[in-house]
């Protein structure tokens, strides 16, 4: 059962870097599911779609991160459209929206996944950039791939900007308000549906950037969203729905535990996918309101 100390140190270091990435890919879900209560099972699928768009733009000669940023406006509009549709068909009618809403997003995820398979095949896709494939030595024989550092920095930036947006701007505060008390917002003369639509657009735009990070950190294939359903929901639930600070902390916890399991001599790669789901079940069973829950 033992794991050598230097290996553990390495695992924790990689876990922190990985954790930042997990926080970034979950940030969008933390808005759409955490704040707006939309059972957005298709979030990881939209992210993988973003990865494929990034792949296309990189082939046209762009840097993957620039590509991800360029994808944000169109995905923002896409997100607004998706929420509008969801609202008109399910939320507005109220009753029984639960089962059908979940099944709806599940179906959407399926369509995106198979669409990608039909369009691009099941092969893995990778992108090229100046920082991919190099590594940085940080003392001794410990080397960190440059790409994980770049992804980590972008991830931190995403969460910081999103946190500031949510607490400092008028619209950001309105999004938080709509999550807390929708009828009150309506009494103040604000249209909650428009605020939610805006927020869902932001969530989808972040998913596009998350997709760019996803393809920077490793090869991407269409069915990848299935593994990320567990990871992203685990992070959001562990964080406590909608808490940005919590999202970072939860991402780190998931990243470190996955990385330790991965490097553990007795467990290894075959147990790593179960970590996020085990964590999720544990949190749901023991502390459903999450670490930083309201």
């Amino acid at each position, binding site marked *: 059962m033992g794991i050598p100390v230097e290996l553990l140190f390495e695992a924790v270091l990689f876990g922190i870097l990985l954790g930042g990435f997990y926080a970034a890919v979950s940030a969008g879900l933390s808005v759409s599911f955490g704040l707006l209560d939309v059972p957005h099972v298709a979030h990881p699928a939209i992210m993988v779609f973003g990865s494929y768009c990034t792949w296309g733009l990189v082939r046209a000669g762009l840097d993957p991160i620039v590509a991800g940023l360029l994808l944000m406006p169109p995905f923002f509009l896409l997100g607004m459209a998706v929420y509008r549709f969801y609202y008109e068909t399910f939320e507005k009618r109220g009753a029984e929206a*639960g*089962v059908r809403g979940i099944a709806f997003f*599940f179906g959407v995820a*399926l369509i995106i996944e198979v669409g990608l398979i039909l369009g691009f095949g099941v092969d893995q896709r990778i992108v090229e950039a100046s920082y991919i494939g190099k590594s940085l030595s940080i003392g001794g024989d410990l080397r960190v791939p440059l790409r994980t550092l770049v992804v980590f920095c972008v991830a931190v930036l995403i969460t910081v900007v999103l946190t500031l947006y949510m607490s400092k701007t008028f619209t950001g505060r309105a999004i938080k308000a709509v999550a807390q008390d929708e009828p009150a917002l309506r009494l103040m003369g604000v249209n909650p549906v428009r605020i939610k639509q805006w927020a869902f657009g932001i969530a989808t735009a972040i998913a596009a950037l998350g997709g760019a990070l996803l393809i920077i950190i490793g090869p991407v294939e269409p069915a990848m969203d299935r593994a990320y359903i567990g990871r992203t929901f685990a992070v959001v639930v562990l964080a406590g729905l909608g808490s940005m600070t919590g999202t970072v902390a939860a991402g780190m916890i998931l990243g470190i535990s996955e990385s330790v399991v991965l490097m553990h001599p007795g467990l290894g790669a*075959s147990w790593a996918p*179960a970590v996020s789901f085990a964590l999720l079940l544990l949190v749901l069973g023991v502390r459903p309101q999450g670490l930083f829950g309201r």
Partner: protein
Amino acid sequence: MKFWIGAAVAMALAIAIAGFVNYEYFFFAGYTVLMFVVLATAWNILGGYAGYVNFGTPAFFGLGAYTAALLYKTYAAPLALQILAAAGMAGLLGCATGLLTLRLRGIFFAIATIALVVMMETVFVAWRYAGGATGLQLLRPAPTAPFESYIKMLFVLMAAMAVASVVIARYIERSWIGRGLRAIRDSEQAAEASGVPTLKLKVFACTVCGALMGAAGAPMPMYLSFIEPFSTFNLNYAIGALASPMIGGTATWLGPVIGAVVLSTLQQVVTVTVSNETNVLVVGVLLVVFIVAAPEGILGLFRKLKR
């Protein structure tokens, strides 16, 4: 009465087909369609009546399949025993899942059931005796007396299981259990407040649902002469089991049957004529179209036409 005659006719038809048709592929395809009738009917007991979305079909189905395969590998147990044991194991897992509903509702329950699938897959990938990631090759025994081929026997067996599961679902639907489950779906708090034993009913529904799914999975290793974790715990089973009732209609036992027959037949046709990927796309598109445009499924459409 009409129902029992219908059930008897369906069963007689399956036996007659097995007696007169001699086209092997028909039985391969027919088996899959009937299997989805069982899965969809089982899913609907929890998802349709009680309103709890279960993505965990592959977990129950796969546990059943592995129970059967391991019993066969270790003791060369007969098929009937394999099915009973599979139903028992998957029923236990269903019971445990039912206890989860104590704290989890809606999307949280749905995600937890996905978690169940991944955990089961991980366990069986890591378990050497069960074949690990490479899987287990199983040698089929000779078919039992009146059947001349094994696949025909499995076809008739699955037909019997489909009829049995529909009978169970119909019983639940019409008894006080079904009324209780529907009360839970409409408002769990109101149901609890008016004296419906919600937890007991939910655990019961989960157990029955799990046991039926496990039974449906039990003949799978014999059907393929092979078992392997990645295709056994594949989420595509969850999609089929969920999409069929949604397409057929979730309110009654007939909905999932119609949905499963229509959807799986269509899938078989598309898989053969176009490709396996297109077949999954068809399911996805049909699912979304029906949820959005015809929330009460094919049955609901018929009811509208009649009016």
